[in-house]
């Protein structure tokens, strides 16, 4: 499962500030009668890199999708960047434009070129002029190392390239927080590394990140906190070293033994 990451990580910018980026308190969510998220409490400071792990169906996706309100929570409070998520559409759009998200299946817009994928939201949400939006887009495409594909369509790119474009597309909105929902689990092993490298670079720049991932190598190297979820609850959270070497709960131990393989 885990990928060896050879490169030494530059930790000079990876500082966690006291400022709170996301605060989730007593959050509950139901799908009909089914209680998916139970009493979630989570505070994320600016600059934190958090990896969320847990068995399938434990509610990891649902939780991070609540943060930009792709899913609606029914009880409790979510405060993102000082703005509380309510049904107020203005707040939702504001938070969404501050919070970038990458999906398992990339979700690039197949009818637009790579460049257009990246300039669309800045132009239409931030009202940035086309020329400027394109410059920003090219800057981020260079960062994820695919500037030469800018005029192709997503369908012509490999999975790893598509996911990197998806990251660049989010970055073009200059988000303060990035959410990743299993960004590498739809990729072939050889492409996982290129995406993880991009994510590591992002972490090195001090981006606040929440990643749902099973890449435990990534978690060890980059995360400053690992959260383990099961049955809609946060069961355990700890620093990566402690979490992997010295798991407290039985469930975590079982999960780790399965995922790390014996």
């Amino acid at each position, binding site marked *: 499962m885990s990928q060896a990451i050879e490169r030494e990580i530059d930790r000079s910018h990876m500082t966690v500030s006291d400022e709170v980026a996301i605060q989730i308190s007593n959050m509950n969510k139901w799908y009909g009668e089914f209680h998916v998220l139970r009493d979630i409490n989570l505070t994320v400071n600016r600059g934190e890199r958090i990896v969320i792990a847990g068995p399938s169906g434990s509610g990891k996706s649902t939780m991070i999708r609540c943060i930009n309100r792709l899913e609606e929570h029914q009880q409790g409070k979510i405060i993102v960047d000082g703005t509380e998520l309510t049904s107020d559409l203005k707040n939702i759009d504001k938070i969404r434009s501050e919070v970038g998200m990458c999906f398992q299946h990339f979700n690039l817009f197949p009818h637009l070129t790579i460049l257009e994928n990246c300039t669309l939201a800045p132009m239409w949400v931030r009202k940035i002029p086309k020329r400027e939006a394109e410059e920003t887009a090219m800057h981020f495409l260079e960062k994820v190392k695919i500037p030469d594909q800018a005029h192709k369509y997503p*369908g012509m790119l490999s999975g790893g390239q598509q996911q990197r474009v998806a990251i660049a597309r989010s970055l073009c909105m200059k988000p303060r927080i990035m959410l990743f929902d299993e960004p590498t689990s739809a990729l072939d092993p050889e492409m996982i590394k290129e995406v993880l490298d991009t994510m590591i670079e992002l972490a090195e720049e001090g981006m606040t990140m929440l990643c749902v991932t099973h890449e435990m190598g990534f978690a060890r190297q980059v995360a400053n906190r690992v959260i383990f979820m099961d049955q809609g609850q946060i069961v355990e959270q700890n620093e990566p070293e402690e979490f992997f070497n010295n798991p407290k709960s039985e469930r975590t131990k079982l999960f780790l033994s399965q995922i790390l393989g014996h």
Partner: protein
Amino acid sequence: MSSQNTPLAYVRKEMLEQQPAPRGQVGVAKWMRENLFSGWFNTALTLVSIYVIYSLLKAVLPWAFGGVWTADSLQECRTILNDLHGNTHYACWAVINERWNQIVYGTFFPSSEYWRTHIAFVLLILAILPVLFDALPRKMLWITAVYPFLMVWLIWGGTIWGPVSVALGFVLAYMASQFAGRSLGSGLTGLIAVAVALIWWFFIGPSVTSGLNKVLPLLHLQEIQSRELGGFVICVIIGVSGIALSLPIGIVLALGRQSDLLIVKTICVGFIEFIRGVPLITLLFTASLLLNYFLPPGTEFDLTLRVIVMVTLFSSAYMAEVIRGGLAALPKGQYEAADALGLDYWKAQRLIIMPQALKISIPGIVNTFIGLFKDTTLVFFIGIFDMLAAAQAIRANSAWNGITWELYIFIGLIFWICCFAMSRYSQWLERKLRTDHR
């Protein structure tokens, strides 16, 4: 590795050059063998088909190409044929030549005004082209925007003020929406814009128009009543208007049907199900006979306009369902990605969802267009003098009494050309919009 001395080990030292395929695997011979003569059954079918096609062409081609193109009546035509071939087993295309005007413009359109339809037709082409081909300069879309008003003025005549007033309603609505949009939400802004337009069209506009008509009758053309329109002209007017209007209305209905707002959804579903459940001809009879009873007395509501409204509503219900299919085919991730980037509902629809949903629905949309265009022949039954009515009249006339094939083949050919063009265009568009190739 230890496998080096086992006999299984093998390493290729040189890559092989590409070689041409064996002869008989390429070209016409291969194609014929694979597609026409593979096996005795296929060969037999091919031979029978060739014979059938041959016999058909042998009968039809001399009939069509040996026909007579100039004659003033069926009688005269037959005399000429007898002189030429000794019998009359040949076509009398002369009827198309002699009755051209009746077929194209209808029976009652004043011949001194034919030129107006010609200009309208040329402008129509110019207005449609930039919509169909985005390689053309975008400035040409101004022609498209102005065309509906120009067309009304050219065809129905009168002064320029009527169409200008209607156009002004749109401009005022746009200005109102710009003004209100600064402080209000998009829903309320839309309502205000519609209200402004309606107030202008129904209360202020008409008196201003009639005043201007008296004081300054600018560019006055001879007025032509809807009853005088006919032939190919009315078919194009109804067909093109219906096509142009049914797509946007269909989009709105499809979105309404998916809406979370219960009332909007109920109205849209009710409308679609009602319209789809009623034959078009019923709606047309309603348009021609009943609608005036429901309208406030004194309101003049032009017959052609009523027919266009009905044809549009009819196809827009089908269109809505076709587009709903396209919407359903889009993965949920597209909506989520648009949401996650902070695009609001309308922007997401306009920039992400609709372009893809419409692309998926192109075959269905064009299908609906083609159906609509052919359905314009139904106006024959409510007394509009379209091409079929013209054919009826020509056949009833003593000069051409007895002619059938030539007229209907010609009319059929006109429809076929239009529909085939639409079909080819849609195939071209689909290929052009394909972006999923590797």
